[in-house]
């Protein structure tokens, strides 16, 4: 079955780890939708969240091969109902002085924050589940999306 998977991995920090990881995806022809990585609670290690769409059996093979990499300590395919997922989007929207108030109101209602204000646009910082980000972007669309930067999903298992 083809579906989206959110995978979290614990990695040893080594030069080239990312290279090895992505090489496995490339060989299998599985493209990464997002990837986010940063320090974690263990020094010398990082946690990475990968979002990929693909066949379950292909993904199983990929996960096995990733686990075989020396730099990969652990890897898990997270279930939707037992994980917290968040993503940060920076969104620059066109905003004439007349539209500003209206946009800022929408941003606040949605739980976003204005990160920067300029003469004819404003930059919003918005953090939520990936699908809420889609929704937020659709609300901003009419004002003109000048630039959108997304961090990719960070996810954590919760029981």
């Amino acid at each position, binding site marked *: 079955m083809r579906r989206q998977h959110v995978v979290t991995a614990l990695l040893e920090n080594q030069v080239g780890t990312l290279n090895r990881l992505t090489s496995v995806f490339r060989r299998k022809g599985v493209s990464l939708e997002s990837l986010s990585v940063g320090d974690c609670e263990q020094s010398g290690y990082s946690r990475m969240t990968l979002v990929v769409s693909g066949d379950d059996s292909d993904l199983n*093979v990929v996960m096995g091969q990733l*686990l075989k990499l*020396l730099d990969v300590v652990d890897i898990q395919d997270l279930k939707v109902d037992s994980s917290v997922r968040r993503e940060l989007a920076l969104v620059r929207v066109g905003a004439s002085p007349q539209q500003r108030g209206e946009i800022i109101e929408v941003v606040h209602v949605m739980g976003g924050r204005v990160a920067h204000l300029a003469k004819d646009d404003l930059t919003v910082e918005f953090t939520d589940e990936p699908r809420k980000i889609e929704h937020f972007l659709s609300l901003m669309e009419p004002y003109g999306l000048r630039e959108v930067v997304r961090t990719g999903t960070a996810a954590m298992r919760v029981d």
Partner: protein
Amino acid sequence: MTRTGATVVMEALARHGVDVMFGYPGGVVLPLYDEMLNWPQVKHVLVRHEQCAAHMADGYARATGKVGVCLGTSGPGATNLVTGIATAMMDSVPMVVLTGQVNTWAIGTDAFQETDIQGITIPITKHNYLVTDVDDLPRVMAEAFYLANTGRKGPVLVDIPKDVFQGKTDVDFPEATQRRGYLLPGPALQEMIDEAAELLNSAERPVVIAGAGVVWSETHKALAELAEKADVPIINSLLGLGSFDRDDPRSLGMMGMHGEAAGTIATQHADLVIGIGMRFDDRLTGKMSGFAPNARKIHFDIDPTEFGKAIPAYCRVLGDLADSLPRFVQAVKPAKHPEWWAEIRRWRESYPLIVPDDGRFLARHVVDSLNRVTKGNAVVSTDVGQHQMWAAQFYKFHQPFNWLSSGGLGTMGYGFPAAMGAQFARPDAEVWCVVGDGGFQMTLQELIVAAEHKLPVKIALINNGFLGMIRQWQEMFYDNRYSHAHMANPDYSKLAEAYGVGFIRVTKQEDMDEAVRQAEAIDGPVLVECVVQMEENVYPMVAAGAANDDLIMDPAVAPREKVKA
């Protein structure tokens, strides 16, 4: 104790019992070549092309079960090793590959002879390292040997910049190697072993397909016990040859694209297929959906990623065969399968492998002579092509570690240097290389190394004037349109003379046995040129992409073109 990086490397080789290594110098590895002079216990063989250093290390490993070591300089030296590394990776051969790198401060500047060999070899090594701090070198060298030779074995590359060879460190070798991200499977689960035994106990038409995992784990004795106790036929994958005595009546020889018909047909009729230390390679299974359609599959392997990769196994036994196989044998009930064997015997009798006796001189006669004269006890390497398949079919191995052939990558040029590596590793063994005239021309420059070291390696060169395997495919699948399959050969007698190796030319079947004996009697390398029938096909055959039911038989054996298995 403070010593240089170069000393650390030599110390590591000595500690790991490396008695021969294969390499070629260049600017950035000169510090290591200088240090080498202080280490007489580690013999260095100067090859004539780095690819052959890798194949020799591979041959050394396959002939001994030990880690093979090769060495090249940065840039072209390193890239020349690539084919040999990929060959070893595909066949899970334990190797430590050392490459020199430009000085750390020059890395990334397109310095002279710089190449990103770490990046290049990520997909073809089990793991690789670029050592930028000499203090890391003792740990990395220890890790490299450990990784190469544990779990599913494979090549590990260590890229060492010139200034790291020259730098000084007082860091000791670690007592033990441990990496959180490297887990070896523990003992196999008892419930899996019991389930596997239960499946075998209740099977009526079981077959075992044994691969190179049995060789590397040295569990050939357990395999033999299994065959006897459960009265089950043992088929070998190409690389598994030698893990089961071919003279044992329960041996059905090799299976695969050119495997013996009886084994292939038996597998298609089996109700249980037990894969042991093998990976259900596409050349063995034929079209996956048509493979052993009525059989449940049990898969024993040390690498969990092999489970379900090619075929969905019903029962998976994860673990080192050294642990799981004897336990499996113990759990299995003694059985007899007279009806199953009666059927198999019929297939064997109907579709035997034949050595014709019609006046023609064929590659099959060469291998058959070798087999008879050496009594199946020689170390045999092959190159890739028709001769490789004939060697696999007609040489009857009795022991593991005697068979060297590039299975997964199918690397032409492998056979001769691999045989040399084996001969360096086992100076007293009788080593024969069966090689095609195409593949021999890829790496024959190493003749001078054989001559220089008076290496008693014997070469059975199959001169058919063709890239035979290519010609066969063009005959069978491209309507006889030979495109660049024909090939000129040099005058091999002059070549042998130029290189200073012995030479025998054979043109008739009846002279072959004597030629083998003559070659054996010569103390040094001998090139035995066997001028055989030019156009001859390997049978049986399962065409690429076809199911194993579609066996194309030798027309001399079965009049119909295809035999439904």
